């Protein structure tokens, strides 16, 4: 395997109905990494993941996944990839156990009963194994889906918004599980909408309008974006917010409880806006803070991120 890169693709492009959904996409994911895949809805995350696991054929581009050619070797890639779809895609009229046995058979696994038992135990599904999948809650369905895509012990996990619609406790358990897999050397590419999940990733690739705009270790992201932030508190907050939102240079105004955070790249413009707001509303306190991951995440997910590279 070339330098232990599990995913090494370049120039992936895909259009639907004449619109480029994914445009010239490159990605390098090292072995054992948890790679976060961020972007607004419709930005091309699902399409990219499907191209990586061979469910969609890229129009152009090339690369290797698990050392195999992504264009010509998709069958062998599928044997070693666990793909968890965004929408639950197991059989609702089969029981948990029947679903897992079906998947285990498709991968031609030996010691099938044993593996299914193990998967059920690992994910705490043992007592529910004879329950029909359609009757499970979102969190349990998600556990089942993860168990199904792990049963053949894949080297690469592709998770497409795995925790959408799942309660916070189940999400935390889910991530603990992903961490354990990662420690065993499993590589994970996970798309998400949640900031608390994004910060758990080793690296983040950010995609908007089908183009990758950012790709860096999670810790480096704030520095890369170079966003500056000001905290605004006091009364009347609503009016101050309205004034700041209209000011030039202000790219993001986000409410955090009793305060608002104002962000932008041009410090001078925002300082001027802050001065105007202070003059208009003397009881409002404005001070510069360090832009945290919260602000950056909101900024990224708002899709207003065309102007950095």
């Amino acid at each position: 395997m070339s330098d232990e890169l599990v995913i090494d693709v370049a120039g992936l492009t895909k259009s639907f109905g004449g619109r480029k959904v994914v445009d010239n996409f490159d990605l390098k994911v090292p072995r054992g990494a948890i790679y976060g895949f961020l972007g607004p809805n419709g930005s091309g995350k699902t399409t990219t993941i499907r191209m990586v696991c061979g469910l969609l054929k890229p129009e152009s581009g090339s690369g290797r996944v698990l050392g195999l050619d992504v264009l010509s070797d998709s069958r062998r890639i599928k044997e070693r990839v666990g793909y968890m779809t965004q929408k639950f895609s197991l059989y609702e009229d089969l029981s948990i156990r029947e679903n897992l046995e079906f998947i285990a058979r498709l991968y031609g696994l030996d010691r099938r009963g044993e593996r299914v038992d193990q998967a059920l135990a690992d994910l705490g599904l043992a007592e529910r194994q004879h329950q029909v999948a359609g009757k499970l809650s979102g969190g349990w369905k998600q556990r089942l889906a993860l168990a199904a895509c792990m049963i053949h012990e894949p080297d690469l996990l592709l998770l497409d918004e795995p925790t959408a619609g799942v309660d916070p406790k189940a999400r935390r358990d889910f991530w603990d599980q992903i961490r354990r897999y990662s420690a065993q050397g499993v590589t994970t590419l996970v798309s998400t909408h949640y900031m608390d999940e994004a910060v758990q990733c080793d690296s983040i690739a950010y995609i908007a309008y089908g183009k990758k705009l950012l790709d860096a270790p999670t810790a480096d992201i704030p520095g890369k974006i170079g966003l500056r932030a000001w905290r605004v508190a006091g009364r009347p907050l609503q009016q101050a917010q309205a004034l700041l939102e209209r000011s030039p240079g202000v790219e993001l105004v986000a409410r955090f409880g009793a305060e608002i955070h104002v962000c932008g790249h041009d410090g001078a413009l925002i300082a001027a806006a802050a001065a105007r707001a202070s003059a208009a509303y003397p009881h409002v306190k404005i001070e510069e803070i360090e832009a945290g991951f919260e602000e950056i995440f909101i900024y990224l997910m708002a899709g207003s991120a065309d102007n950095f590279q």
Partner: protein
Amino acid sequence: MKLPAIPALHLPELDISWARVMAVFLKELVQMRRDRPTFAIMIAMPIMQLVLFGYAINTDPRHLPAVVEMREDGPMTRAFLASLRASSFVDIVAVARREEEAEAMLRSGRVSYIVAIPEGFERRLVRGERPQILIAADASDPVAAGGAIGAIEAVARTAFAPEFEGALAHLAREPPPYEIVVQRRYNPAGISAFNIVPALLGIILTMTMTMITSIALTREAERGTMENLLATPVRPLEVMIGKTTPYVFVGAVQVVIVLLVSSLLFQIPFTGSMLAFVIGVGLFIFANLMLGYLISTAARTQMQAMQMTFFVFMPAILLSGFMFPFRAMPDWAQAIGEALPITHFLRIVREVVLKAAGLPDIVGDLGPLALITLVLAAAALLRFRRTLD
């Protein structure tokens, strides 16, 4: 004291808003327009029915194929043959010299009649011995058999009339100086159940096998499970075999039920080879499963799959020889019929059940049936998308 108010006659259910009616109406229109295949079938269905019923189907069967078994070649028999050829009731497809030849054609269904003129016909006619003209009709389809028998008598009358002149004028009398003997083969009593019940097996299998498999893939796509299936290393052929095989057993149970009912309730004799029957019916079940599977690669919703199934089911009933004599249809309709699995199956089942046919007799229909099955399976495999594109 307060008097109870008299309730006004008011039916809240009739209190409707036309704006909301309009909203629902417009939404339905948009949804109807989006579902192109359903719309296309709704338009194509009446056209197909009109054409099939109007042109293809002929309840007054004409042009049924016949073989003439000529044991004598003289001026009178030649005149008779010429008249038969000119008649629109039968089409003489062959002139046989040997009995076995003609019999084989009747059993295989290539002809509906044998018209046999015995040796020494003319000599015995002139002597006033009333020789026989034998008409053997394939009565496994009583409708087809009935039609032309009377017609052949009329043809004989007009054919011989010009011959009975001069020295032979004494032959122009009633009853005619020859005798027409009609044999109804395979179903001497002309019981229509003999024709319909074995054929119903074909209809039942076409309907259930095709319908069940037509949603095989459609259901996976509709429920979203297709994405998971495609993400595994499973191959299209594996999916096809795995998905259709369970229904082979369902089909086998249906076959047993029909056979039991037809022998216990309708007393239909099973005259032919069981091996030939099993091979024929097995191949036919596969053909229908492949047809259904092909539909399921094309339909986007289960609803569309049902409609497409019904769409192919129509010609299966009308053009296969199930309801109307196959040989009486125009050539183009017969050509379509030949492409339908059920057409060949109906011939096989009638031959085996009623005409005591064995494996060699049905090879002529097993071949096309196998070819149709292979084409359907190949088309389904080609259409199966390995990706979500």
